[in-house]
């Protein structure tokens, strides 16, 4: 069964069409990777799925329920989705532990002790237990992004949306973040990721979608799209990424 379904979605900012007739099916426990140049619509698609932006046509379904319905309670939908941003967006006035437990306690109604216990468990698993009581500005970019990922999975979302989570990091820190995502994939977390890391995409993707000007122009398994692209524009894009040393 598909956890997430995006059907013929269209999104405009003013007169500019950012997503056009875009469809996507994400089965449970799979990872869908979105690739494409900056401005091709990857981030917008993720923001639309998380209802941070409203779509202008089409529909989005989560576990069979239409979440693009204007009457739906967006807070309830977002409780079932996790989102990680390119710029981490940790809350600077809260410790790492408080960042992670805010939503479990305030939104999901967990007891404080239970939420903290679970947060520490996750931090320990990902090697960050000693950072629990520190403030985000004391952490490296890689550590901040790992905390952001833990924060978004602490409430066990149905789908985790990752928006270029390594773009703001230098190459050495990229790996520590990607290894968490690999672990989550092994745990069976359903994911949609936008990324420029093609090697990583090949490792985790069940499906790769190449976006150009708001449309998915080529899709298939990682071996198909990344190793043996069919369309000239996909080839051109991958060639440029390769030249930038990311393949």
């Amino acid at each position: 069964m598909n956890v997430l379904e995006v059907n013929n979605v269209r999104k405009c900012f003013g007169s500019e069409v950012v997503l056009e007739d875009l469809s996507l099916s994400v089965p449970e426990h799979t990872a869908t990777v979105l690739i494409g140049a900056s401005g091709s619509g990857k981030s917008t698609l993720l923001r639309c799925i998380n209802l941070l932006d409203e779509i202008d046509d089409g529909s989005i379904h989560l576990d069979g329920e239409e979440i693009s319905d204007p009457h739906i309670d967006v807070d309830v939908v977002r409780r079932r989705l996790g989102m990680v941003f390119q710029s981490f967006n940790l809350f600077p006035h809260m410790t790492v532990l408080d960042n992670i437990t805010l939503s479990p306690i305030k939104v999901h109604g967990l007891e404080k002790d239970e939420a903290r216990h679970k947060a520490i468990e996750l931090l320990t698993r990902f090697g960050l237990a000693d950072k629990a009581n520190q403030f985000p500005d004391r952490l490296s970019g890689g550590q901040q992004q790992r905390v952001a990922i833990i924060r978004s999975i602490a409430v066990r979302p149905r789908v985790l949306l990752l928006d270029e989570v390594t773009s703001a990091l230098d190459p050495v820190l990229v790996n520590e973040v990607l290894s968490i995502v690999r672990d989550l994939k092994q745990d069976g977390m359903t994911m949609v990721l936008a990324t420029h890391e093609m090697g990583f995409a090949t490792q985790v993707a069940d499906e790769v979608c190449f976006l150009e000007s708001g449309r998915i122009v080529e899709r298939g398994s990682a071996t198909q799209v990344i190793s043996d692209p069919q369309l000239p524009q996909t080839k051109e894009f991958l060639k440029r990424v390769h030249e930038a040393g990311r393949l």
Partner: protein
Amino acid sequence: MNTNDGPIHASVGRALSWSPSQREIERIAQRKSLARKRIAIATLSSVVVLGALVIAVVTSPGFTVVKETFFDLSYGRKVLHLVARGILTNIMLTIIASIAIGIIAMTLALLRTSRSAALTPFRILATVYVDIFRGVPLLLVILLIGFGVPALRIHGLTSSVLVLGTIAVVLTYSAYVAEVLRSGILSVHPSQRAAARSLGLSQSQTLRYVVLPQAVKRVIPPLLNDLVALLKDTGLVSILGVIDAVRAAQIEASRTFNYTPYVVASVLFLCITIPLTRYTDRTLLRSIARQNAQGAA
């Protein structure tokens, strides 16, 4: 910052065996001599400028008269307790007013920044309120409220000048402080809201746990500034006849035609405002340092 592990150990090893080179020893000596020179220049220029000021005042033709009418020490000591009792009124007024201002200003700021459809009329009213009370001089508001409200002769409404004066101050300052708070709320980056909302927090939870704590922290220095200004401006209610420090000094001065009480009142105000402004400066510098550190991270 990226390849920390290896180099850190190496540099620790180097630090233990390091001793300054001949060039570095020379540089240290040069820096010391430069620093001495700077201190000497600062001292000299201060003595010259301040000395010239003092001489100009002391040798001015009216100085002896000014000294007697403004700086009569023994008279100043005699009126000190009267003016001090007056300044207690200013302090009390400041404390009570700042609590009321905090509540009203926060409400106004929240209304002005909210996007809820149901609150539209209140948002408009809040905007009009801020426009009016930020634009009318405080002295006029005090006069209008202080003399206007009793003239209405509404039964049960207070005619206490102290209460009416306080209300006037609260009305005006709420508009100022609301704008400070609003700028703080707007300065929190939209990505913080997005992150909070994506975690499932509602609009009001996002405001309460994510936006407001950051907003208020950022505007604490300007708020402290307003607190200092508020304390001074409470002196304006003396125009209604409230016996605060300003009024107490005025009564004394008009009795003896000696203006020393005014100086006493000024000194008393300074005794409170200078520590407060020093403290404000410190928090401002600290918050700037913190923001810069965040920018670097």
